[in-house]
């Protein structure tokens, strides 16, 4: 006889908006008791927002969360914990100079006793590790652990609480080695056997097929479909994941690609190894790969933002050395950084100051800035990039994300770059601004700019790039030309399959 499965957690019609972005759009989700449920989706699909809402870190604009029959419109982190929700985030919340045992049982210290019973902590931690098949001395300081073990300690902390009934693992396997992944999977099976429900977020498709029971595919803040893992295929999942109807319009290339402008040979440093690539005049070269596989790191080397250990750069066939962003800019290489607010624009300064910051010396005579030229640049680029602002004296911090991004772009363009590196150029900006950025990229490429674009959005990569370099674990894993473009193939290469 079929029995209705017991539901541990259900979310109904959750909505969460950020300025300019809808992170969750009437999202519903259901978690059964004792199941391992995968959340699958591209970056920005709303997975993190969902788990943060469940853990009470965010408050949703509307919708309800029901945990073991108790319904909430807003839940506090404390309530979530009391109901047995434990989240292991990608970023660790650890005290590096304390021991592993202390880190795990830290929250228990407050209570009756003033002194922490170290012996007791260590004994219990040892028992816990044994249960987890983990070879780790509870006295080790957390700062001495590898990232993989740090992750294990986080998981141990989450399951050490007898109250834990729902465990959320946000990309738990990302920092782990193959052996460690096996250990983790054993733990997951044990937990499942104990009736704990697990939400498992991973970009690695094979893992989902290995340990998950069901999978919910998310896209643009909506849950697209929930499927039994046994009854689906990776092809189906990939097409659900990326197969949105194209809302953006990618302007096609109308001018030919010219001679090679920038060539990198054997770049090493900053965690990446032996990267070689070239980009031609008017070409748009895409960099694909999962987050943290060294795309940003590679191009920061090219821009001189981080120290290059080995490797050579050639600009128009001539060897150049780039030791700082200043060097790079003077040679015509510009960067639109990944983090707009922290790296891209100076939030406390005006638009005008932002736009001119990289060319101040050129528009100054005897150190005095020529205001006419300064205003001229500002006016020109505000118009050309259609920055929506009341005036050029507006502080950059007061603009919306899309407009800030345009200002950051203007800053690079004023500097007269020949090579433009764009790191996630459309992350977190609204659809209209996205389209404008795409149009601009095409316009620049038609004018002969060599563009290198890092993007985690598959559509955008395939829509705009002429060629795609695919990175995996700090190395180049493949290169595809436009004729060979195929989402699945890129995902396969990126996940090291």
């Amino acid at each position, binding site marked *: 006889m079929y029995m209705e499965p017991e539901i541990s957690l259900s979310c109904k019609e959750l909505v969460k908006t950020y*300025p300019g972005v809808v992170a969750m759009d009437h999202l519903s989700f259901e978690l059964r008791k004792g199941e391992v449920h995968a959340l699958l989706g591209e970056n920005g699909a709303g997975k993190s927002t969902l788990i943060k809402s469940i853990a009470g870190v965010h408050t949703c604009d509307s919708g309800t969360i029901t945990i073991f029959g108790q319904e909430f419109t807003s839940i506090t982190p404390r309530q979530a914990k009391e109901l047995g929700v434990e989240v292991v985030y990608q970023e660790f919340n650890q005290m590096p100079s304390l021991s592993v045992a202390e880190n795990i049982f830290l929250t228990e210290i407050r209570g009756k006793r003033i002194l922490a019973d170290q012996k007791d902590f260590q004994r219990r931690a040892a028992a816990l590790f044994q249960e987890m098949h983990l070879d780790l001395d509870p006295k080790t300081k957390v700062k001495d652990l590898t990232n993989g073990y740090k992750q294990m300690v986080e998981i141990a902390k989450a399951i050490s609480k007898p109250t834990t009934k729902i465990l959320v693992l946000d990309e738990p396997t990302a920092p782990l080695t193959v052996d460690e992944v096996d250990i983790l999977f054993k733990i997951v099976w044990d937990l499942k056997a104990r009736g704990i429900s697990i939400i498992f977020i991973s970009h690695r498709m094979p893992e989902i097929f290995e340990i998950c029971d069901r999978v919910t595919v998310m896209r643009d803040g909506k849950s697209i479909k929930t499927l039994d893992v046994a009854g689906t295929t990776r092809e189906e999942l990939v097409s659900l994941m990326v197969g949105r109807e194209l809302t953006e319009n990618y302007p096609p290339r109308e001018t030919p690609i010219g001679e090679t402008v920038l060539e990198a040979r054997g770049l090493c440093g900053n965690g990446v190894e032996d990267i070689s690539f070239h980009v031609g005049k008017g070409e748009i070269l895409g960099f694909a790969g999962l987050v943290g596989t060294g795309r940003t790191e590679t191009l920061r080397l090219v821009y001189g*933002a981080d120290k290059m250990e080995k490797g050579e750069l050639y600009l128009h066939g001539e060897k150049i050395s780039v030791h700082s962003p200043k060097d790079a800019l003077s040679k015509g290489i510009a960067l639109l950084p990944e983090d707009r607010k922290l790296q891209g624009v100076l939030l406390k300064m005006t638009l005008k100051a932002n736009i001119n910051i*990289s060319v101040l010396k050129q528009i100054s005579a005897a150190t005095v*800035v020529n205001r006419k030229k300064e205003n001229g640049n500002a006016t020109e680029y505000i118009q050309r990039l259609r920055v929506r602002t009341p005036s050029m004296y507006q502080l950059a911090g*007061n603009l919306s994300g899309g407009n800030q991004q345009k200002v950051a772009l203007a800053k690079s363009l004023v500097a007269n770059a020949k090579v433009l590196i764009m790191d996630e150029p459309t992350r977190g900006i609204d659809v209209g601004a996205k389209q404008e950025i795409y149009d601009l990229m095409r316009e620049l490429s038609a004018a002969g700019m060599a563009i290198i674009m890092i993007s985690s959005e598959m559509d955008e990569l395939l829509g705009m790039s002429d060629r795609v370099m695919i990175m995996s674990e700090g190395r180049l894993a493949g290169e595809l030309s436009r004729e060979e473009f195929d989402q699945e193939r890129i995902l396969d290469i990126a996940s090291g399959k």
Partner: protein
Amino acid sequence: MSVKENTLEKPVGTMDAGAFFKKYMMLIILVAMSIFFSIFGPNFFSWDNAVTVCRQVSIIGICAAGMMFALLVGHIDLSIGTTVSFSAVLFAKLISTKEGIEMNPFLAIVIVLLICAGFGVIKGLLVVETNMPALIATLAVSTALEGVNLLVTDAKPISGIPDGIAWLGQGYIGPIPMPVVIFALIILVAGFILGFTYIGRYIYATGSNTEAARLAGLNVKFVKVAAYIVCSCLCAVAGFVLATRLRSGTATTGTQYQTKALTACTVGGISMAGGEGTIYNLLVGIFIIGILTNGMTIMGISDYWQSIAQGVILAFSVGVDCYQRTHVKTTLRTAK
């Protein structure tokens, strides 16, 4: 789109209100204070007292201008007091007709300036190369300088400053005392650099967001070291004026100047977070402190109480600055 525009409205409004408060509130307080002391302080409202106030603030004002450069790049300089003392005692020692070597005063000025610039380089490099907190780096330099000053003077005042150079601290140009002239010149030059040259923009950009400035192609390390050099050289100038005005150099002459300079800066609205504050803020801050000190003295309030008042003002002004900053952040975060 509508979502975006709605959420955009609010921060714009609140930021403007904050900016308005920062910009004019202190000026209003300054005027209110002047009116208060004019009514209740005998002889406060007079030309002579106005000149006195200006002279009283001039030396601290020069130091505050130095502190401003350190604050604008996002750091601080707690060695201002001992650098002023160092400059005063070394200058006195070099030119004194009694205890020194009777060097040409102008040569002595150049030498002391160069040495102080060297201190600036040391402070700057400590901060940018090791990433240590500027608080500690400059405190360490200050502690060392305290010893140097005592070594130079043997803990005794150095007198015998020749008549000629005493004009620097005691002379007048027309009705205006020399220290005030020097102070005014420094304010003009600093204001010009900060407001009109690319050097000024570099300083604001570096203080506002060092990483973004670096990625925009600025040599941020150089900018920071340069700010410390400027700060130390201004301290040296304050030391010259102080020594010639008192016609002696003592090891403790600049004690606590960094606190007064910092109070003047923060009261005026120069942010501790870096990148925010103009020469206007500096002037308002300097005169608030100057008029408060002068007014309280005229009303017969003791130095002890003045010191207490200054501590309260420092805590209050920095508190407001930091509170506003974190408060804006949280409202932005919840707006998300």
